[in-house]
């Protein structure tokens, strides 16, 4: 597949990285030499320096033969222009990154595909959806639903009270045989190393563990992990940017009391104008007195989404110290992800990573139905529709050789989710969710496709 990525910012670079692992034919275009230099030296891709809205540059990138053009520069209008031009020049599919959520809400009525834009991606919107999902399962710090919730992936940090701390995976599943859950990835406390658990792997206190579970398993996992389900009633959001605003809208529609802190006075007034249900407060979120005045200790969740990653992390730590149960910080710098759990912030989100994953999912449409990257871990979750002539088809799951770099998390058959499926035979049309380390993606794909 021939892919052109316009814009070598974090989204563009991350995408190029993800795609280059799969040995796709990638051209990365950016006007800034320095942006390209790093990608050129680290990734197996072609780079092209220049303005992506230039027709000459697009032709140089052979846009006419491109299967996909992804416009992810920081400017929304540039992205739209790139997509329109590319489509006219012969590109098969186009994706534009946008910031204005109105475009996504009115996608149908405007008919962007008529102009030549097949998909719109808004990192801000993805981020606010992610926050919403995280809050609805407040005890867990990551979650992702497959097939409308037939299978759910959740991430949790094991507290001392979890009943299976110290037990092996096999022992843990024997304690409660009626509960179907499947550990798919573990990160030990204080390390940055992801391991794919097997029967003999031991759960330890402080582990970040990802589970696959079927529909009703989510509630049961609460008991097992020693966490209590808390209804979120009061939320404080720091930063009235696009994400803060979107999140405030979504949360207040769910009937949650939202306090939104914004440091810029006129921006705060506009927010108060647009969001009558939200209490908008004009002030600096790093000001402890202000936070206390606004009863931060009564908050069920604290979401820091200002433009400054450090502010977000620090204020989340402050919220934690005021015994706020759930903290979410928006972080631009990917390196911080590695240490997020060690420093105590429940969840870090990165809108660029979200966008890249979302675009990646779109690219793999038809083959890989859904995919997500595990937060803070170097592992991916892929959902396949099993092809009839694939290697794994009609085999018992326990007979499939996956080595230690991948694990089958669950199977969805006729809309019903199954976990712990050693004795199941994979059939044509099954949807299989696999967790694997990046190096094994190609191998896993071959098995099912």
């Amino acid at each position, binding site marked *: 597949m021939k892919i052109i990525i316009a814009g070598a910012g974090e989204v563009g670079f991350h995408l190029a990285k993800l795609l280059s692992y799969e040995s796709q034919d990638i051209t990365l275009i950016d006007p800034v030499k320095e942006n390209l230099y790093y990608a050129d030296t680290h990734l197996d891709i072609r780079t092209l320096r220049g303005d992506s809205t230039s027709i000459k540059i697009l032709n140089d990138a052979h846009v006419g033969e491109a299967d996909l053009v992804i416009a992810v520069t920081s400017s929304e209008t540039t992205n739209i222009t790139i997509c329109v031009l590319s489509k006219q020049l012969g590109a098969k599919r186009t994706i534009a990154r946008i910031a204005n959520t109105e475009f996504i809400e009115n996608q149908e009525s405007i008919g962007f595909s008529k102009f030549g834009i097949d998909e719109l991606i808004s990192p801000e919107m993805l981020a606010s959806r992610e926050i919403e999902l995280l809050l609805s399962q407040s005890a867990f710090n990551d979650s992702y639903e497959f097939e409308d919730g037939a299978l759910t992936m959740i991430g949790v940090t094991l507290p001392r009270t979890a009943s299976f701390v110290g037990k092996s995976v096999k022992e843990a599943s024997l304690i409660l045989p009626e509960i179907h859950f499947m550990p798919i990835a573990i990160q030990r406390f204080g390390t940055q190393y992801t391991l794919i658990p097997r029967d003999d792997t031991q759960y330890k206190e402080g582990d970040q563990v990802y589970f696959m579970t079927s529909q009703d398993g989510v509630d049961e996992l609460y008991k097992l992990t020693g966490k209590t389900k808390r209804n979120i009633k009061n939320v404080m959001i720091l930063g009235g940017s696009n994400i803060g605003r979107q999140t405030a809208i979504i949360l207040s529609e769910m009937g949650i009391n939202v306090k939104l802190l914004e440091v810029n006075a006129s921006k705060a007034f506009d927010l108060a104008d647009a969001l009558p249900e939200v*209490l908008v407060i*004009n002030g600096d979120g790093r000001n402890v007195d202000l936070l206390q005045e606004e009863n931060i200790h009564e908050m069920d969740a604290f979401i820091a989404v200002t433009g400054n990653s450090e502010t977000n992390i620090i204020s989340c730590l402050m919220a934690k110290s005021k015994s706020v149960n759930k903290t979410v910080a928006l972080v631009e710098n990917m390196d911080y992800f590695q240490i997020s759990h060690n420093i105590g912030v429940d969840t870090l989100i990165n809108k660029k990573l979200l966008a890249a994953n979302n675009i990646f999912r779109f690219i793999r449409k038809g083959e890989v139905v859904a995919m997500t990257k595990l937060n803070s871990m170097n592992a991916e979750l892929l959902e396949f529709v099993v092809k009839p002539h694939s290697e794994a088809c009609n085999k018992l799951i326990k007979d499939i050789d996956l080595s230690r770099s991948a694990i089958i998390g669950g199977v969805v058959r006729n809309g019903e989710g199954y976990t712990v499926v050693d004795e199941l035979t994979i059939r044509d049309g099954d949807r299989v969710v696999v967790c694997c380390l990046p190096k094994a993606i190609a191998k896993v794909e071959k098995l099912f496709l």
Partner: protein
Amino acid sequence: MTRLNYKIIVFIMGLLLLFNGGFMSTSAVVSAIYGEPEGWYILLAAAIAVLIGGIAMYFTRDHVKVLQKKEGYLIVTFGWLIMAFAGTMPYMFTGAITSYTDAFFETMSGFTTTGASIMTDIEAMPKGILFWRSLTHWIGGMGIIVLAVAILPLLGIGGMQLFAAEAPGPSGDKLHPRITDTAKRLWIIYVGFTGIEAVLLKLAGMGWFDAINHALSTLSTGGFSTKNASIAYWNDTPLIQWIIIVFMFIAGANFVLSYFAIKGQFKKIARDTEFKWYASFAIGFSALGAILIYLYANVSTSSIGHPMVWGELESALRHSSFQVLAVMTTTGFVSADYTMWSPFLTIMFFGLFFVGGSAGSTAGGIKVVRHIILIRNGIMEFKRTLHPNAILPVRFNNRAVAPQIVFNVLGFFILYMLSFIVGAVGLAALGLDFETAIGGSLTSLGNVGPAFGKLSPVDNFAWLPTLGKWWCAFLMLIGRLELFTVLILFTPFFWRNR
């Protein structure tokens, strides 16, 4: 901006005199129809107005068409004054009113749509003069519409930017991008409603002359009647009074909403916060008044007859709604003496004097929109003490109102109250009793018409001392022009360059 553009001010004054003269000549025509000799004098007055206006315009025809805010204030204030001075001519020339003070009071009361009168025997007046009297209301009403849609929002006075605005801002609610077009559309509605009311009143039993005069003075929320007893003259014809009640309600509502109604956009009306409050006030107080009148009031003590043609309940409801709307919309028609019903009702009507109609109508007073903002801001103050850093804007029509506008409204309210008190003090200094002084100040400032005490609905202003009449005329002018417009001319910094 270095010097005031006097030429354009004079030019516009000339233009206003031309208008004035034109309307005067229609009164002359009315006089002619009834074969009154006074018609010639009215025509003379018209000719003088046109002549002076024409000369003024001729000598300033090379004016620069640039208007700054300062010129705006001067034009508005002096425009009204010039109109009032010129408008005295028909009264003086025909000898209908002999004292110049009285003539000026009557014209100012007309152009400011107040409706307070010094005439003791209205019915004895020539028809041409009565028609001119009603016309001054109607012209004043037209002026107020222009003022409301074009001038006050520009000058940014007391939150007049709001109206039924979709988006609060200096633009107000523009029906059409160009302000002159907006004004024209509203004028057409204004003229149309006047015509409709005149026809309906005729059908309900009035003569054409009375019907047209009352239509002119209803739509402008004026209050001049052609009868000594005002609308109480038709107390035996409930239909006439109900028609006037409906049209008073329309005249006190935002004309922009009438425009929406005609275009069939009823949703916009239902969504309009000010209209909802205005309608609730009108209906609520009418109902309360009706119950109290029905149960407690002894109508026989009033000097006005209360024939109960359609039964006692209807009579109570009708007089209550009539007076509530007459006071709220600052029309000032009289169907009954509200000071004679009960102490509670007197106080209720005293309160209603402060309400006023909607912004964008011809009504005077503080106006409902300002009350809404004041009340909501008051509620927000409580919240603000709990959350000192929170942004808690006052919301109006689902939009946040800029703090600047809230301050504006607060300022207006305070200035209104001060003017009311100073006005009352002035009248009391001239020897008026407490109740009368307060009522006279309030009714002049709010452009209502009748007041309390010795200026009750059955009295008139003829007995006021000369100075008192000028004082009341001044209060009418500042009240009509939303205080700031006139009072700013008394500030030293207005006249200083830069």
